[in-house]
């Protein structure tokens, strides 16, 4: 079975919600929509306090190159544009909306009919992706249209679709494939057309056999698209690792996938692109997994952007008594939430509830120099070496040990028997080295 070349770990899979169909989360009375919900330059608000907006109406516009549009998830009045706290505790500008109704803009097709014929040209597709505010739903929230504007000296050969869903607990990709199989495949056709290529590879971990079967059943109608089973191993869905597993090509250090002729998108993004291009639907909702060993009901929910995390928790029966930590994303790379009143964004993929017991790290002892972190690193780095140098603030040497190639997958910290906070230290090293590099380039 295909897999990546170096390292990797196998945490408990815990796909507790994988059998649960996507539920529509009830519409809310109030919404808080961050002006910018992507990686890149901030978007510019184009509506004002007191304006009445419709569902799907443009609220903030992308003016820079790496930037994305933001649309209204509801129909209602903008009561204010002010700072709101995100779940990481950062204050960011947001639209506060008093919801009145759910009237969609006329140009949006809200029916369930599947539109199969792709009418738009390559160029129009990219324009539409940009216009509808699509960002990468794998977690990074990178504006999708940018990936489809290939530099002139580069050539795309493969569209790589990330359906690995290698993070434990997360099940939203699995549900999208099962419940929207055809739309996802049409989305991939659209992406191929945008790139003027015919080859697409969907990489999917072997623990999702039902999803693999569902896709394979429809594949004959989509020549050029291939589904590849991948070994269930973390981080199978990390961009560079996935490209290697599917094409045996190695993205050079510091370069983007296009260097080896690949464009990578998440399978959830393929569905969003289908909706944007075929239905003219902006990205105003996403599928979120509410899960955890202690929660009463594991659920997959379709939630509008701007819904408070707390209201989702309440809807799902509240947090259990012994809750120790609440995470957005998977347990390997997700972020621990600081503020549960914060609203969801386009990329809030899960609410993972961990018990107090799970939330505590193991006891830290002296490093045993066992080398498990080195064997686990999918980038072939020596985490312990980088950490030792960093503890002595030898940043330049840590840079020579290729600290900047770290993808922060967490395999080292996961595997360390001595409980050394390896990734925590490497993150500090990366930010220090980043500052050193910026100072260097100024000279």
């Amino acid at each position, binding site marked *: 079975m295909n897999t990546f*070349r*170096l390292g990797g*770990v196998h*945490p*408990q899979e815990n796909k507790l919600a994988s059998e649960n169909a996507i539920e529509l989360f009830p519409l809310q009375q109030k919404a808080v929509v961050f002006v910018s919900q992507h990686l890149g330059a901030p978007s510019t608000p184009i509506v004002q306090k007191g304006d009445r907006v419709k569902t799907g109406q443009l609220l903030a516009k992308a003016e820079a190159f790496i930037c994305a549009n933001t649309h209204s998830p509801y129909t209602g009045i903008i009561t204010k544009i002010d700072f709101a706290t995100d779940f990481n505790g950062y204050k960011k500008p947001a639209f506060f909306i008093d919801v009145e109704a759910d009237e969609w803009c006329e140009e949006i097709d809200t029916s369930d009919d599947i539109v199969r014929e792709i009418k738009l040209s390559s160029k129009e597709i990219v324009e539409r992706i940009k216009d509808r505010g699509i960002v990468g739903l794998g977690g990074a929230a990178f504006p999708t249209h940018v990936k489809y504007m290939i530099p002139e000296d580069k050539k795309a050969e493969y569209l790589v679709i990330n359906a690995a869903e290698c993070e434990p607990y997360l099940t939203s990709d699995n549900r999208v494939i099962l419940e929207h199989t055809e739309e996802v495949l049409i989305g991939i056709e659209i992406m191929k057309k945008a790139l003027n290529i015919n080859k697409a590879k969907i990489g999917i971990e072997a623990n999702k056999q039902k999803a693999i079967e569902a896709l394979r059943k429809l594949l004959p109608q989509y020549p050029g698209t291939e589904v590849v089973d991948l070994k269930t191993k973390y981080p199978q869905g990390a961009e*560079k690792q996935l490209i*290697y597993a599917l094409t045996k090509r*190695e*993205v*050079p*250090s510091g*370069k983007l996938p296009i260097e080896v002729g690949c464009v990578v998108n998440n399978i959830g993004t393929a569905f969003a692109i289908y909706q944007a291009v075929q239905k003219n639907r902006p990205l105003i909702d996403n599928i979120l997994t509410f899960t955890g060993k202690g929660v009463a009901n594991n659920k997959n929910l379709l939630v509008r952007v701007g819904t408070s995390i707390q209201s989702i928790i309440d809807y799902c029966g509240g*947090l259990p008594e012994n*809750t*120790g*930590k*609440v995470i957005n*994303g998977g*347990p*390997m*790379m*997700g972020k*621990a939430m*600081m503020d*549960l009143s914060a609203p969801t964004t386009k990329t809030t993929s899960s609410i993972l509830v*961990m018990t107090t017991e*799970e*939330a*505590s*790290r*193991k*006891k830290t*002892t*002296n*490093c*045993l*120099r*066992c*080398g*498990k972190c*080195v064997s686990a690193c*999918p*980038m*072939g*780095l*020596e985490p312990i070496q980088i950490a030792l140098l960093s503890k002595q603030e030898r940043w330049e040497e840590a840079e020579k040990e*290729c600290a900047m190639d770290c993808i*922060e997958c*967490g*395999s080292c*910290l*996961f595997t*360390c*028997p*001595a*409980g050394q*906070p390896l*990734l*925590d230290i490497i*993150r500090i090293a990366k930010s220090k080295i980043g500052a050193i590099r910026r100072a260097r380039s100024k000279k």
Partner: protein
Amino acid sequence: MALLKVSGSPHVQSKDTTQSIMWSVVIALIPALLVGVYFFGLRVLAVTAVSVTACILFEWLIQKFLLKGEQTISDGSAIITGMLLAFNLPSNIPFYIVIIGALVAIGIGKMTFGGLGKNPFNPALVGRVFLFLSFPTNVAMSEWPKANPLFGGEKIVDALTGPTPLSMIKNGESLDLINMFIGSTGGSFGEVSAIAIILGGLFMLLRKVISWHIPVAFIGSAWLFAGILYLAGITVDPTTHILAGGLMLGAIFMATDMATSPITKTGQIVFGVGCGLLTIIFRCFGPMPEGVSFAILIMNAVTPLINKICKPKKFGY
């Protein structure tokens, strides 16, 4: 509701802990201990108990009064050092010598450098070599008791001493390989049984406490090199070599010590081959019959260098 925890990812960790690894090694050492008891009598248990107790006590005392750090005896590593030190000794050794060995192993071999994981040399080997060099004329470290099964044959009160396979190799005498494999032979009581040591090694492999690289490289290179010398008429056959003396125990339990062996798999192979070659060189050309301890200690010293040279192949370069 209680406050939520916030920390960097990852939010899950593997089940392995320092303690679980150390206890796996202790369990892996038990077959060799039992075979030792079978062939050399209950004094084996007494020697092991004295050695382990002394190691734990010295670590506790040094941590309490000299380093003044958090107590570390519960991690189980002192038990391993104690067991391995004992396994390298003859069963008739006086207890005071065992205690001196434990003090050197833990005091100088381990705690001087800051404790577990920071020691450059395998502590048990430091203790063993110290005793070997300090008591050369003493009965204890130069003459070894003969194997004498507890539950078979005639029982004798006083242990008999006799030549070990290695001194017989030195004298060019032939040996019974089957007896060496089982452990019915003279020597340190923990070293004699290849089968018991291999059994322990397989358990550690299964628990992923060790990988195959060091033992295979060590034993394989020793066998090959001894084989070449055998064909040249210099020494006995290579299989006798790898079953004799401390080679099995050294290759599986001592050379694989995490703290004192290289980090990468390539490094571990280089390390193992170095140990194998040096052992045979010492045995065939050195003044003493055994060379495993010195071979491993020398390779321990080279480990930082190996770590520097044998880097993993990085992704994207």
